[in-house]
């Protein structure tokens, strides 16, 4: 596998070699349970503690505010359900938006079945939620707002600080899904004014199967997993020391390289967008031209179905992704592209290229060398001939 041709870093990333090295001792050498009192246990505890210190520094919070979980999805479930359960006496209204990840949307739908009420805010043509709208839908019984930091499909970066302020003014708690943002955007929870934040390691060159939930001190949270009282009683279960160590190492590396990496990726992202739109007629950028993640490119090629392009590119060793009908279980096209007000025809032809640490200009040029002809081929096979003006 050529990592230079891997344009699916928003799905998951390769684990950095330095991370692999950092994790190694904790599988079968320092394998103790951090809850044990013997030396081996204490050594594991020490590793766990320093990982927590590292992550607390990263988020600019205190150690007790960092809860380790099993994934970004778990963190999100824990934040939303945990806050909802803890606050249900106060109210049962939750606000989120239509372009959230299924981890948020499905959790909210579940809560609706349990008697909660959820408002799903619309977004504008770029995927931004409106602060005015948010203020309007706030109610006395609103207990939680959950708005993602940056969108996984189209990369739109929400005005998270402003959203947090609106929540504060209305005395409503605020959760953000920062799984895509970590490693690229400001993660200072104090500066941002966040109450709960979910993130994971598998998008920033750390291992899969580990996540964090930041819970601001004093914020209510009913635990979902009961047991031995680990993670300050908020998430029981023996701590997954090797993966936690790996996550901390990954965050440390990503944080150290962030400024340089953001600049490098932004330049390549803009190059790829510019060239795709130039070289392939009838192509449309999804999301905002600049207020998007530095590694996200999402383009619709009219009159072709995303999956065909994806599979043909795969044969050249190029990995991309589609949120369109054919990858999702339901065969529905991307709910995110539809929420932008784009018609179904546009949603079906979207392709996401998410760049990363191993992306090079050469790799992008290889992609640019293959994609235009691939699109042309499937357009020639297609009985659909929509023009941009019809969209």
């Amino acid at each position: 596998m050529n990592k230079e041709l891997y344009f699916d870093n928003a799905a998951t990333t390769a684990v950095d070699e330095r991370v692999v090295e950092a994790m190694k001792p904790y599988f079968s050498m320092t394998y103790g349970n951090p809850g044990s009192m013997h030396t081996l246990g204490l050594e594991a505890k020490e590793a766990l503690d320093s990982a927590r210190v590292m992550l607390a520094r990263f988020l600019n919070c205190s150690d007790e505010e960092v809860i380790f979980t099993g994934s970004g999805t778990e963190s999100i479930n824990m934040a939303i359900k945990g806050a909802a359960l803890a606050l249900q006496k106060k109210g049962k209204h939750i606000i989120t938006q239509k372009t959230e990840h299924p981890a948020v949307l499905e959790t909210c739908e579940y809560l609706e079945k349990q008697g909660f009420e959820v408002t799903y805010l619309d977004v504008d043509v770029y995927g931004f939620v409106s602060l005015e709208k948010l203020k309007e839908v706030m109610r006395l019984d609103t207990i939680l707002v959950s708005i993602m930091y940056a969108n996984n499909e189209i990369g739109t970066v929400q005005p998270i600080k402003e959203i947090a302020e609106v929540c504060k003014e209305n005395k409503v708690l605020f959760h953000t899904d920062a799984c895509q943002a970590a490693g690229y955007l400001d993660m200072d929870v104090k500066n941002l004014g966040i109450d709960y934040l979910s993130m994971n390691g598998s998008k920033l060159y750390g291992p899969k199967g580990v996540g964090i939930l930041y819970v601001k001190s004093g914020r209510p949270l009913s635990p979902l997993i009961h047991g031995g009282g680990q993670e300050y009683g908020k998430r029981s279960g023996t701590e997954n020391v090797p993966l936690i160590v790996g996550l901390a190492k990954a965050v440390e590396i990503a944080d150290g390289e962030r400024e340089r990496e953001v600049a490098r990726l932004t330049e390549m992202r803009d190059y790829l967008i510019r060239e795709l739109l130039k070289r392939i007629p009838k192509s449309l950028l999804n999301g905002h031209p600049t207020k998007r993640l530095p590694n996200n490119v999402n383009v619709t090629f009219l009159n072709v179905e995303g999956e065909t392009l994806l599979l043909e590119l795969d044969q050249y060793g190029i990995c991309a992704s589609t949120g369109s009908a054919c990858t999702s279980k339901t065969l529905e096209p991307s709910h995110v592209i539809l929420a932008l007000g784009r018609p179904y025809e546009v949603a079906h032809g979207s392709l996401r290229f998410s760049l990363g640490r191993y992306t090079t200009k050469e790799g992008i040029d290889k992609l640019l060398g293959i994609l235009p002809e691939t699109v042309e081929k499937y357009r020639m096979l297609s009985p659909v001939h929509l023009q941009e003006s019809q969209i």
Partner: protein
Amino acid sequence: MNMEEKIQLHKDVEAKVESKKWFYSETVKEHFFKPKNFLLSEEKAKEADAKSDGVGQVGSPACGDMMKMWLMIDRESERITDCKWQTFGCASAIASTSMLSVMLTENGGMKIEEALQIKPQDIAARLDGLPQRKFHCSVLGDKALRAAVNDYFRKTGQDARVIVGGAKVIDKILKITDKDIEEAVLEGAHDFETVQKKTKVGVYDKNCIPEVEQLIRFYREKYFG
């Protein structure tokens, strides 16, 4: 080299295909990367519109799948002498149409009556199977064929032979038909709850629920049983 030749060769790809893992069956791969009997370009499609004995189009770009099929039919023997197609859709939609076109034209061409006996399962079987949620692709191919044959019947004044698959309204309030339920089952909704989530059937018209449940069982067995 023009696009047609490139597709026939598909050299770059073939070299790499061998060792790779692939989501679909090998036969789907073959018919996706090197489709048979396709019409390349809008111009060729227009020419075919004019000279074909029967033309059928089903689906829509909004649904994510659209197929167009052109048939040449020998009036005397009623054999399909040529079949061309264009498809907008995923890999299994392209492969399904390609395979169907082969089935219709192999061995000197299939007789119309025989062709109308083809079921979506037959296309899927010839492709060595399709994932369950892609099964609707073969259904669409089947529908395109029926539409093209009907067009032939109309063009040749054999209106009596036109096959009309009328839809029956099941949900009286939302006007949801048995076709809608069939479609939902084909797209992977195999119980009442998921069909309702997809179609909203029975949300207001509660009386239709037993009939809907019966239809779901029927289509589930028809396509997946």
